[in-house]
Each structure stands twice: as C-alpha cells, then as structure tokens.
C-alpha cells in the first residue's frame, strides 16, 4: 500500500508536528510522551474533557481539541492505545480544579491504560478524574463471550455534546452522567470495501477480493464480523441500519442525529449516496433526522468504507450539538 509518509516509524510524530504547525494558534503538541492540549487550558470554572486512543483515526481525537469539544487529546502509536505516561499530563493540564472527564473508547487497551492512569492520578490525589467508556458498536455482542462493544462513531458525537455541556459549566458528575446517557442512546455499525495498511506492517491487515466487502468492522483495521459479496450502496445501508435500529431500539417518533462517516478512503460523493438511503429508510420508519453529520470524522487510515451512527436526540442534546465549537475537525458558531 502506498502512503504519503517518510519513515514508517515517524508517522505519528511527524503528523503531530504538522498538526502543531497548522494549528499552533489554538493547540500545543507535547512530545515524548505525546499529548495535545488547547492553548488556553485549563479553562477556569470548567471541567476538563480528555479523550485519546491510537493514531490513525484523524481527525479523531487531536483534530477535536478546542473550545466546545476536547481540552486535550492523547494519541498513541497507530492503532495502539496511549499509555498512562501520556494520559496523565494531558489530564492534569486541563484541570482547572473542577476535575476531568475522560471519554474512553471501549477497547481492552484503551480502558486498561486509562484505568492505570487513573490509579496513578488517585495515588497523586491532585486531580479528580471520572472516566466514561463508550461502546456504541452493534456489530459486536456485549456479552461474556466478547471484550464488549467497540467505541466507534458515537465517540465523535459524545465528544461534541459533552464538550458543549462542559462549556455550559456543568459539573464533573453531571457530565459523566450525560456521557453515560448519550452512550446509552447511540448505536453504530461500519463496513469496509478495502482494508488499511498499518505503516510499520507494510501490507493490508486483511485482503478483500474485488467482489467482496467486510461487514461489522471497527476502526483499527481488524477483520469484521462477516465477509460477503459486494452489494449496492442501498443494500449496504440496510445491512448497517437495521441492526442499529433493532438494537436500541429506535422507532417511530424518535428524533435522531444521523452520522454518515467515511472510513478514510471513500469519497464524499459516495457518503451522500449512503446518506440518501439512510435518510429514506429512517423517514419510512417515522424517525425524524433533526441533525446530521457527513464526512470523515473517525477513520481507519485509508480504509474505503463507511459507518452509520444514530443518536437519539432531545431538546437539550440538540442545543448542545448546535453550541459553538472551534476545532480543526469540527467548527461552527465561532
């Protein structure tokens, strides 16, 4: 797989340097350990919001650092959860005294590393930290037979809404409750037309034939639930949307945010074709799309494919969605 990179070992460092050069007016990148923080952190009177995970999902999470969303982001190596060495300074840097909420995608590594960072923080006793785990992926059963559902597209929405709520001055417990509630009301599922290539691995993580697609993928390039023959966009949308609708469930009368996400290598024209069918199916079911998001927000390097995310909305959530946000990856109202 061809890439626009230099030494594969330097991908994350160099991308961070690029992010610093491009967005240094609003955020600062720290190296060894790697973490990013908004320049005006900590914001007096506000709970700090931190998230992180492996790199390779840009703009998630570093691209969401700024007013209205994340105060700090913690980027691990490609597809590898960051370590407590990284989580700690990022967490402390955004604590104005009101505490810090960590939004943690549900992967064994992400949870364990944030947990270990939490143990160290408690030992130090200076920062009050709460963590909420995000696990919106319906492709995986949440049972004793799995490591639990992956945190995927819902992460973007939760980071935005919680970021806005933090801006409003809500306290740490309230924000944790909100994050949990949002996590309970959001569902996602993704698919891939191609795999992706982790820079140091040098070859795609899995191989699909010209007439195959992978259903129920995550964002780290691992194989999905099922491999099957490629279908039309409309058929793919049904394969993603139906499990989402049945799971929560979503039903007639619901107001939702419909998020069509590109995995990195799929062009925007196709994402709108996907959006069309998803919107039609929701309308058929009496579900009202009140807000939406279409584009590459939580990616898997150059993977071609898409994911659908549905979040149940209420007036408060709509207000939080509409609230100003000023990050490289998401911006409105300012």
């Amino acid at each position, binding site marked *: 797989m061809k890439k626009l990179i230099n030494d594969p070992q330097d991908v994350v460092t160099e991308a961070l340097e690029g992010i610093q050069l491009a967005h240094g007016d609003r955020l600062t990148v720290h190296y060894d*350990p790697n973490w990013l923080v908004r320049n005006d952190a900590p914001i007096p009177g506000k709970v700090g919001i931190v998230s992180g995970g*492996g790199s390779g999902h840009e703009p998630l999470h570093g691209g969401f650092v700024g007013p209205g969303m994340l105060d700090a982001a913690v980027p*691990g*190596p*490609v*597809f*590898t*959860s*960051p*370590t*407590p*060495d990284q989580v700690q300074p990022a967490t402390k840097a955004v604590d104005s005294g009101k505490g810090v909420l960590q939004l943690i995608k549900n*992967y*064994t*590594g992400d949870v*364990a*590393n944030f*947990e*270990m960072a939490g143990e160290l923080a408690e030992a130090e006793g200076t920062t009050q930290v709460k963590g909420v785990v995000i696990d919106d992926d319906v*492709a*995986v*059963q949440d049972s*004793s*037979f*799995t*490591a639990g559902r*992956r945190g995927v597209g819902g992460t973007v929405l939760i980071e935005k809404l919680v970021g806005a709520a933090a801006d409003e001055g809500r306290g740490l417990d309230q924000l944790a409750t909100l994050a949990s509630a949002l996590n309970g009301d959001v569902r996602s599922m993704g698919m891939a037309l191609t795999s992706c290539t*982790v820079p*140091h*691995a040098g*070859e795609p*993580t*899995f191989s699909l034939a010209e007439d195959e697609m992978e259903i129920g993928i*995550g964002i*780290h*390039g*691992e*194989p*999905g*639930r099922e491999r099957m023959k490629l279908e039309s966009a409309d058929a793919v949308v049904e394969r993603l949307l139906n499990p989402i609708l049945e799971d929560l469930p979503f039903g007639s009368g619901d107001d939702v945010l419909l998020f069509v996400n590109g995995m990195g290598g799929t062009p925007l024209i196709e994402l709108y074709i996907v959006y069309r069918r998803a919107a039609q199916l929701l309308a058929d079911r009496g579900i009202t799309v009140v807000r939406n998001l279409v584009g590459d927000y939580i990616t898997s390097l150059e993977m071609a494919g898409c994911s659908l995310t549905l979040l149940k909305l209420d007036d408060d959530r709509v207000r939080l969605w509409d609230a100003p946000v000023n990050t490289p990856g998401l911006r409105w109202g300012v």
Partner: protein
Amino acid sequence: MAGPTEAALAFVRHYAEVVHEHKSELTKLDSAIGDADHGENLDRGFQAALTQLPDDDAGADAVLKAVAMALVSKVGGAAGPLYGTAFLRASAALGEHEQLDGPAVLAALVAGEQGVIQRGKAEVGDKTILDAWRPGIEALEAALDEGASCPDALDRAAEAAEAGMADTIPLVARKGRASYLGERSAGHQDPGATSTALLFRALADTARAHADD
C-alpha cells in the same frame, strides 16, 4: 551460578532480542485476528526497557520493575498494561527471594499471571496470553515438585507454554480484539499467547545458558 540480578538482566536482554526477531511474526498473527500492532508494540517496549535496566547489583526485582515501568509507559494497547502489570507483580514477588531459583521464578510467574488476570479478567480458553501462561506455570510447578533442575523445569514449562500457544488456534476468542471477530477468530494462533510462549522459552534458554555459571 550467576547472581539473580545478572540472571534477570540476561533474561530480559534475551527476551528483548527474541521479541525483536519475532516482531514481524507477531504482527502477522495480530493481522489475522487483530490490528497488526502486537509485534511493534512489544518490541518498542522491550527496546525501551533495555535502555532503562539497573546495574548488576540492583536485585532481580529491580530489573523486573524497570521492565514493568518501560512496558507500561511505552507499549500501550492491551499488551502494555497486561505485560506491564505482570512484570510489576513478578517484581514484587521476587522481593522475598534471595536466589533466582526454581521456586523464585515460579512465584514470579504466578504473581505475573495474577497481574494479567487482574488487568484483563480473562480465563483460560478465552484465547489470550493466559492460554500459554497457565500451562507454562502448571508444567513448571509439576516439574519442580518432581525435583527437576531449574533449567529442566523451565524447559518443560516452555514446552507446555508452546503447546498452549498452539492450542489457541481452534479457540473462538472471548477477550481482546480477536473477540470482535467471533467465530472467525478460530483457526488462527493468538499473538499474545505467542509472545507469552516466547517469554517462557526465553526463560528456559536463559536458565540453560546460565546453568554452568
């Protein structure tokens, strides 16, 4: 016989070399049922560990603790906390022991396993690190009970760990990233169990090499 610190240092250096040599293989295993980073992650951690090892007289527990710190701060992913905690607990367990003999290594491994279980909450059969670790411990325990020498006992432990690693092939993963694949995880050897088997083999080889010291 080499002092415990030197033995521990020898083991760490040897295992770091083994991990480096098997980086590609571990990454490939982690591609079939994962995200293709296990080899890279472990290698990064152990290369970092090599630069943070204490002096020859610091004590075997200090060596393992230094490794633990390096793993926790540099590896990330699932393996970082799991192996990091394992080495930390092993280090604590070694504190009691003056020599790095069979019972000491067993205690360290048992404590390490507890660390893995505490962090990962897996059970044997979940297709993880544990599926090589547990058989390795059981074989070591049995061999030592039978009066085998430390190198011989560790040899049997390594064989059992390797058998456990191979036995992960037909398993359906119930923990870790491979569990997202469901039934599709069957038919592939677990990367973490593989790096664990390599660890047991490195222990055995180090014990053998130092048997005449």
